[in-house]
């Protein structure tokens, strides 16, 4: 999963201090491993350099956690791109997709559409694998099947998440 894009997405909700950003991030995505402060500031610095964000009211003498950041238009575009570009189905897709969904919900974006696009991507990948199976050796069929089952698992997760979007949104907003 792409930490920087997730942080950028979180910023899209409202301008925040680095400190708050880290805590938001931890709450939504850091259940297993919290983000280190150093990593947050490094990422923020990089994004500021790329002009995806702006530091507000640059209070002199304050450390990075005393700085408030705001997303720029370029940043917003970057987030949107990220959200609505389906990922190639792969092993580590899940956390990214999850982050995208959460961000979309948090920012009142069209999470359902995001999932559907991902779904279509998965399906076309599955179709391709299924085509490969035709007339293939049994060994190859088994490999394809392995891939198919994995993609299918993702797909099922996508479908399930799609069915639970409303519930998820309520929970996120409540939190």
């Amino acid at each position: 999963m792409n930490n920087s894009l997730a942080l950028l997405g979180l910023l899209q909700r409202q301008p925040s201090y680095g400190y708050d950003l880290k805590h938001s991030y931890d709450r939504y995505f850091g259940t297993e491993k919290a983000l280190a402060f150093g990593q947050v500031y490094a990422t923020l610095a990089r994004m500021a350099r790329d002009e995806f964000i702006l530091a507000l009211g640059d209070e002199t003498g304050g450390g990075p956690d005393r700085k408030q950041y705001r997303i720029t238009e370029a940043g917003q575009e970057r987030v949107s791109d990220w959200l609505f570009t389906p990922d190639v189905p792969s092993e580590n897709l899940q956390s990214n997709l999850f982050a995208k969904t959460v961000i979309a919900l948090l920012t009142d974006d069209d999470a359902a559409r995001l999932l559907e696009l991902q779904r279509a991507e998965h399906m076309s990948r599955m179709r391709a694998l299924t085509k490969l199976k035709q007339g293939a050796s049994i060994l190859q069929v088994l490999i394809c099947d392995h891939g198919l089952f994995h993609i299918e698992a993702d797909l099922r997760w996508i479908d399930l998440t799609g069915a639970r979007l409303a519930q998820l949104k309520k929970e996120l907003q409540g939190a």
Partner: protein
Amino acid sequence: MNAQAQTAPILSARGLRHSFGSTEALRGIDVDIHPGEVLAVMGPSGSGKSTLLHCLAGVITPDAGSVTYQPGPAVGQSVTISSLNEAGRSRLRLTEFGFVFQFGQLLPELSALDNVTIPLLLNGTRRKDALQRSAELLDRLGLQDNGTKRPSELSGGQAQRVAVARALATAPKILFADEPTGSLDSLAAENVLTQMLQLVREAGTTLVMITHDPRTAAYADREILVRDGAVAAGYQVAP
């Protein structure tokens, strides 16, 4: 798929709406189905997939919208299914369409072979010819030794293949399948599916197949996703 998009759709639905009492099962659906394609219809339970299929096949008449069937390139050949009467739709279903369901669609008292002959006989084929064609189909589906068995003596996968044979017996233009592998395990499902697809593709039959199973849907050329009685964003017909 681009090639298909250029040919005229064999079945085309516009603005389909249908309600059961206060339940709105379809809320404005547009679909185009192209000749020879295999289309998977997916979507959550209760989203209206079966209702859509029934409307497309002329099993029920939608409250609003139209379904047009165009079996060939000639212009005058198209039929507006949604405005036919019951007898006309029955005849259309009998001669032009085939149906496969999840289970329990075979007449329990008839042998597998006789089950397959029914649509042929209804079409006026002589029984001898019907039996011959049915036996061929069962052969193709690997059921040569099961022709005399009753459905209760067949396994689920065998029964499903008999159902496929019956649906294809009349060489329909469009085959409608509602979760055809829904009650089978992965391997049996795959066997039934590949055999069905092989026959369908050979004959150039159009297949519209509802399924919950992504791996089944992956056999299709294309899929649409139905959600809350409408085709989900990203699967809509290009205007």
